[in-house]
C-alpha cells in the first residue's frame, strides 16, 4: 500500500471537517474546486490518491520528531502515515508543526518574524503554506527558497517516480541535522546543488543551483504533460547532448524563454536548417508537444536528434561527400538520412567504420552513431573513434597543436588518460632522443591509430555471461542440445542429467542452436541456459567455443547440437586437450524423395570429430555397429558404445485379453516418410477383417483416401492416453529406427509388438519376444506372418512376457545410470574407486 493509499484510507474512516479538509489541501498543495460544485472530501481524496509520493509534503519521521508527546496517547500509532496525517490535522496544524523536513518552524519565525509580522512560531508553517512559498521565503536554514520550492515541485510532478536520491538524502539530512550545515554525503550533494557546474552544459562556465532547479522544474513539467517517467540515464543523456547555451546562441530567443529548460520545448518546435553554425534539428511535426519530442528523442527518435555533441562540420562533410553538398536538405540532413548508414563520418568525433568494425556491427541498416548514442548512460561506453588519440599522438610526433578533447571522448571511459600522457612533454622528449636511432619512427605523415587488431569480440560477452552463470551452477557436465521441444533429444538430455544428478554430479543443459525453449519440456531440478539467442549461427559457434574453452567445465556431451558438432569438428584437436568431449548419436536420418541415402550429424561430423571425443553413445547396438563400420578406424571403434535408454515406467501393465474376431492393430508415429504410414494403408487394404487405429497427423486429403478400416486419431502427448488394453498388437512399419522409447515402454507394459526389422529394433524384438517383419517383403506377406504369430493367444502371451523380461534387463534404469556415469565421468569414477 502506498503512502497515499494509507492516507486516503485513514481519512475516509476519520471523516475530516471542512476546515480540516482545507488544511489538508494546503498541506498537500491540492487545488480546491469551485465552491458550487464540490464534494470537497471526495475530490481531495481523489487528488491525494494520485500522489503516490507523499513526501516531502508529509514525512512521518520528521513530524514525529516535532510532536510533543505530552498528552498524546495515540503516538504509538503514528508511524502509520494515515494516522499521522489525521493527527496533524487534529493537533499538529493547530500547534504550528510542519510535517515536512524542508521546513523549520523556529528558524522561519525568527527569520521572517519582522518582515512578515508573525506573532508566534505557531503561525509560521501556515504562513509559509499560504504566502511564504509564493513569495520565495526561505523555509530552512540549509535550503535556499529555490531548492525548497523545486523539491516540492519535483515531488509533486514526479507522481509515480521515486524522488531523486539526492533530494531524499538532502531532505533527511536537513531534518536530522536541523540547524547544522549538511555534512557527509548530504553536504556533498548540497554543494553540488549550490555550486556545481551546470547540469545541462558540461562545457559552460560554473553555474548556480538555478540550473538544477530549472532542470527539476522542467522535468516535472514533462512528467505532468506526458504522464510518463524519465530515467536518470535518460536524464544523463539529455544533459550531455542538449546544449542549451548553444541553442541560445543560434536562436537568439533567450529573452523570450521563461526558463532554460523550457528552451528545450521551444527548441524542439523550431525547425532549424542545417547551416553548420549550430545545433541542428530536423523535427518537423511542430504540432507534437515539446515533451513528446524530448521523450521521442530519448527513446529512439535518433534520426531527429538535437545534436549539440559537436557542431556539425557541414563544409568539411560536403567537401568529402559531394552528393551531400547537392542534397536538398543540406549536408547535415544528408548525414542523418544517408551518411550515418553508409559509414560516412560525423566530423572528427565519430568514426563510423571504426565503430562498426570494432563492435562487429554487421547490418548496415543500423547506424553506429545511433548505437553509440543509445548506449550512453546505460552501460559501458564504447569508443567513438580513435581520432583523438591519433591527433594527440600525431601532435607529439610532429610538434603540432593538439585539438581539445571532444565531448564524445569525454563520455567514453578509460582513454582520456592516454591523450594526457601522449601530450605531456616526456613523450616528445623521448621521441627526440630515440628517433635518431630509427628515423622511421617519425617518418611519414599518416595518422597513428589506436591498435585494436585483437579487440575483444562481442562473443566474449556470451562467454562471460555463460561462465558467470556456470559459476553459479558449477556444473560437472554440460549437456548441449539444439533447442528444447518435446522430443527424443530432450528426453535423453533429461535422462542423462538425472543419471548424473543421482550419482552426485551436477549437470547443466545448454541450448545452443535456436532460441526455442518450450517451457513444457520438463527439466526438474536441472539448470538450463539458453545460448540460442545469438543472432547468427557463426555467432553461436564462436560463443560456444568461448564456453568450451573458458568456462572451466571439463565435460561436455553433445546431444544433437549442430553448433556443438561444428565446434567439435573444427577445434576438437585443441579443445580435447583441456576438456572431455562426448556425443550422443541417434539413428541415421533418411533423405526424403527418390534418393534414399542417409544424412545427419554422424555423416557430417563424426569422422572429423571422433579422434577428439572421449565417447560416442548410441541407443542401440545395430547403430553402434554401423557407426563403427562408417568410421572404419578400429582404434576409434571402442569409443562407440551402445547405451539403451532406460525404462520410465510411463505405462502400467496392459492385460492381454482373449482373441477378438476383428484384430485391432495400433500404430503410433509421426506421419513422416521414414515411418511409412503408406504401408499401414496397404496392409489395411489387404486385410479388411482387421481394424487399424492410427495416432498420427494427416491432412484431410489423405484422410479421405483411407480405407474404412483405418481409424485415425489425433496424436497424443503420452502413450498412456491410448487405450492399449483394447489393442491386439502394436505395429511399427518404419524404414529406419533406433530403439524407440515407445517400443521399450510398450514391451514393458506387455503389449504384443510387431515391427519391421530395422535399426535397433532387433535389440529388443525377435521371434521369442515379438514378430519381426522384413521391410523388403510385401504387405500381404506381412499379413500372413502376423496371422501366424497371433494364431495362438497363449503364444502371444508368452512372447509378451518374454519381451517384458528382456526390456527389464536391457533398459534397466540403474544400468543406464551406471553406463552413463562410467562413460562420461570415467576419470572421476576411477578416482572415487
Amino acid at each position: 500500500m502506498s503512502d497515499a493509499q494509507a492516507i486516503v484510507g485513514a481519512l475516509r474512516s476519520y471523516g475530516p471537517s471542512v476546515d480540516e479538509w482545507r488544511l489538508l489541501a494546503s498541506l498537500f498543495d491540492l487545488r480546491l474546486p469551485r465552491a458550487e460544485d464540490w464534494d470537497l472530501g471526495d475530490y481531495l481524496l481523489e487528488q491525494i490518491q494520485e500522489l503516490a509520493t507523499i513526501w516531502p509534503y508529509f514525512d512521518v519521521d520528521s513530524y514525529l520528531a516535532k510532536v510533543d508527546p505530552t498528552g498524546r496517547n495515540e503516538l504509538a500509532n503514528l508511524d502509520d502515515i494515515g494516522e499521522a496525517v489525521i493527527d496533524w490535522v487534529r493537533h499538529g496544524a493547530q500547534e504550528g508543526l510542519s510535517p515536512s523536513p524542508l521546513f523549520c518552524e523556529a528558524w522561519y519565525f525568527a527569520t521572517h518574524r519582522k518582515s512578515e509580522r508573525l506573532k508566534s512560531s505557531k503561525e509560521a508553517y501556515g504562513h509559509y503554506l499560504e504566502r511564504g512559498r509564493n513569495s520565495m521565503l526561505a523555509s530552512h536554514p540549509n535550503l535556499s527558497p529555490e531548492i525548497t520550492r523545486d523539491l516540492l515541485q519535483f515531488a509533486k510532478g514526479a507522481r509515480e517516480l521515486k524522488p531523486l536520491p539526492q533530494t531524499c538524502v538532502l531532505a533527511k539530512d536537513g531534518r536530522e541535522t536541523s540547524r547544522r550545515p549538511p555534512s557527509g554525503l548530504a553536504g556533498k550533494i548540497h554543494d553540488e546543488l549550490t555550486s556545481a557546474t551546470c547540469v545541462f552544459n558540461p562545457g559552460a562556465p560554473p553555474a548556480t543551483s538555478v540550473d538544477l532547479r530549472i532542470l527539476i522544474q522542467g522535468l516535472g513539467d514533462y512528467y505532468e504533460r506526458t504522464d510518463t517517467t524519465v530515467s536518470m540515464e535518460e536524464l544523463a543523456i539529455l544533459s550531455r547532448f542538449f546544449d542549451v547555451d548553444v541553442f541560445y546562441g543560434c536562436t537568439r530567443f533567450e529573452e523570450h524563454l521563461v526558463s532554460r529548460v523550457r528552451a528545450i520545448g521551444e527548441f524542439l518546435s523550431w525547425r532549424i536548417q542545417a547551416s553548420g553554425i549550430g545545433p541542428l534539428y530536423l523535427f518537423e511535426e511542430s504540432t507534437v508537444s515539446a515533451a513528446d519530442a524530448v521523450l521521442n528523442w530519448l527513446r529512439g527518435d535518433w534520426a531527429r536528434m538535437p545534436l549539440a555533441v559537436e557542431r556539425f562540420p557541414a563544409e568539411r562533410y560536403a567537401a568529402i561527400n559531394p552528393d551531400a553538398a547537392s542534397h536538398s536538405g543540406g549536408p547535415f540532413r544528408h548525414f542523418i538520412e544517408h551518411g550515418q548508414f553508409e559509414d560516412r563520418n560525423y566530423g572528427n568525433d565519430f568514426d563510423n567504420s571504426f565503430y562498426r568494425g570494432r563492435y562487429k556491427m554487421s547490418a548496415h541498416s543500423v547506424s553506429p552513431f545511433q548505437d553509440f548514442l543509445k548506449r550512453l548512460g546505460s552501460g559501458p561506453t564504447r569508443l567513438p573513434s580513435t581520432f583523438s588519440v591519433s591527433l594527440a599522438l600525431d601532435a607529439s610526433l610532429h610538434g603540432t597543436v593538439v585539438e581539445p578533447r571532444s565531448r564524445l571522448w569525454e563520455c567514453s571511459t578509460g582513454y582520456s588518460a592516454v591523450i594526457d600522457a601522449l601530450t605531456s612533454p616526456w613523450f616528445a622528449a623521448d621521441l627526440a632522443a630515440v628517433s635518431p636511432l630509427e628515423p622511421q619512427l617519425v617518418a611519414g605523415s599518416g595518422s597513428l591509430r589506436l591498435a585494436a587488431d585483437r579487440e575483444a569480440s562481442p562473443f566474449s560477452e556470451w562467454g562471460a555471461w555463460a561462465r558467470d552463470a556456470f559459476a553459479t551452477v558449477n556444473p560437472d557436465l554440460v549437456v548441449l542440445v539444439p533447442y528444447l521441444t518435446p522430443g527424443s533429444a530432450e528426453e535423453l538430455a533429461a535422462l542423462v542429467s538425472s543419471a548424473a544428478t543421482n550419482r552426485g554430479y551436477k549437470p547443466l543443459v545448454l541450448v545452443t542452436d535456436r532460441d526455442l525453449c518450450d517451457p513444457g519440456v520438463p527439466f526438474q531440478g536441472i539448470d538450463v541456459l539458453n545460448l540460442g539467442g545469438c543472432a547468427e549461427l557463426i555467432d553461436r559457434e564462436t560463443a560456444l567455443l568461448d564456453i568450451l574453452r573458458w568456462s572451466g567445465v571439463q565435460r561436455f556431451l553433445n546431444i544433437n547440437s549442430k553448433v556443438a558438432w561444428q565446434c567439435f569438428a573444427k577445434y576438437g584437436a585443441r579443445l580435447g586437450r583441456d576438456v572431455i568431449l562426448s556425443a550422443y548419436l541417434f539413428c541415421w536420418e533418411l533423405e526424403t524423395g527418390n534418393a534414399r541415402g542417409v544424412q545427419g550429424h554422424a555423416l557430417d561430423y563424426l569422422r572429423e570429430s571422433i579422434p577428439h571425443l572421449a565417447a560416442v553413445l548410441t541407443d542401440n547396438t545395430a547403430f553402434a555397429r554401423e557407426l563403427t563400420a562408417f568410421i572404419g578406424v578400429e582404434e576409434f571403434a571402442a569409443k562407440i558404445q551402445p547405451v539403451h535408454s532406460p525404462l520410465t515406467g510411463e505405462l502400467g501393465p496392459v492385460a492381454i485379453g482373449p482373441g477378438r474376431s476383428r484384430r485391432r492393430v495400433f500404430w503410433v508415429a509421426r506421419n513422416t516418410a521414414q515411418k511409412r504410414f503408406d504401408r499401414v494403408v496397404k496392409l489395411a487394404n489387404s486385410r479388411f477383417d482387421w481394424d487399424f487405429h492410427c495416432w498420427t497427423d494427416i491432412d484431410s486429403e489423405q484422410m479421405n483416401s483411407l480405407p474404412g478400416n483405418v481409424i485415425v486419431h489425433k496424436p497424443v502427448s503420452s502413450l498412456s492416453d491410448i487405450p492399449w488394453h483394447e489393442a491386439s498388437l502394436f505395429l511399427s512399419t518404419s524404414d529406419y529406427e533406433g530403439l524407440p522409447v515407445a517400443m521399450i515402454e510398450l514391451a514393458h507394459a506387455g503389449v504384443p509388438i510387431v515391427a519391421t526389422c530395422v535399426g535397433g529394433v532387433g535389440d529388443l524384438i525377435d521371434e521369442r519376444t515379438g514378430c519381426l517383419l522384413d521391410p523388403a517383403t510385401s504387405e500381404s506377406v506381412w499379413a500372413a506372418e502376423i496371422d501366424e504369430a497371433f494364431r495362438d493367444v497363449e503364444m502371444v502371451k508368452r512372447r509378451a512376457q518374454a519381451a517384458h523380461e528382456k526390456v527389464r534387463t536391457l533398459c534397466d534404469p540403474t544400468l543406464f545410470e551406471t553406463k552413463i556415469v562410467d562413460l562420461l565421468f570415467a576419470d572421476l569414477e576411477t578416482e572415487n574407486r
Partner: protein
Amino acid sequence: MSVDVSVVLNLHREGALSIPSIRSVQQNIHAAQCSGLKVEWIVVLDTADKETEAVGESLEAEARVIASSARDLGAARNLGVTASKGTFVSFLDGDDLWCSDWLAKAYKTAVESDQSIVHPLFNVFFGDAATGKSIFVHQSSLDPRFNPDLLRFINAWTSLSFADRRIYESFPYCAVDLNAGWGFEDWNWNVRTLNAGHEHIVSPFTVHYVRKKGAHSLSGMTIARDTWVSPDLSFAYSSMTSRFGSSQIRFRPGAGENRLG
C-alpha cells in the same frame, strides 16, 4: 660482481634492422649506468642468418653472445635467462626499440612498487606501411578497471617485459607450435604469471617502439593461422577468475531472462 639488470637481446634474421635495436640497448645501458645500475648484456642468436650473425659477433666486446638452434623465440628467451646473472631481466627483440631510459625507469618501478613484472605504458607500432603507425596502451593488472576477462581474447601485455629473473626461471616460455595451432608464447606467459600472483604493472612515462613486419613476422603468422594461445590455460584461467572474484566479470545484459528451471 652483482648485476642489477640483465638485458637479453634476441636476434634471429633481422639483419640491418637490428642496428637501431642495438643502439637502443646501448643508449639504455648508458642511461642505466648513469643511474648507478650495473647492467650486463646478453645477445642470443637463434638460427641467425649470416648478416645477423655478423651483427651479433660485432657485439662480442660489450655483450655475451650465445648461439641457439632452437628456432623458437620463447626458447631463445629462456636461454637468455639461463645465461643471465642479473636481479632483473629485460627482453628486447632484435628489431624493436625501447624508450631512451626504459631500463632505469623499469628498474625504479619494479623496486619501488615491490612488484616484479613491469611493462611500458605505451607501445608504438611502426614500420608496416600497409597498416601505418598505431599505439597500444598497457594497463596495469592493479588498475581497478583492469578486467582479467579480456585476457581470454587479448594479450594484455607485449613480450618485452622487465621482471625478476626468478620469475622467468620459474615460468619459462612455452614453445610455439604453429602447425598444431598453438601460439602466443608471451600471452601464455602473461596469463600463467598473473595466475600465479605476479602482478603486471606499468612503468609511467615509458614507451616501446615495436616494429611491425606484416604477415611474415611470427605474430603475423600466428594471427594468420587462427592460432590459439597455448594450452594449459583454461584451468589456470578458471582459478584466475576466482582469484579476481566475480565482480570483475561482466554480465551479458538481460541474459538472465533466458534462464529456465
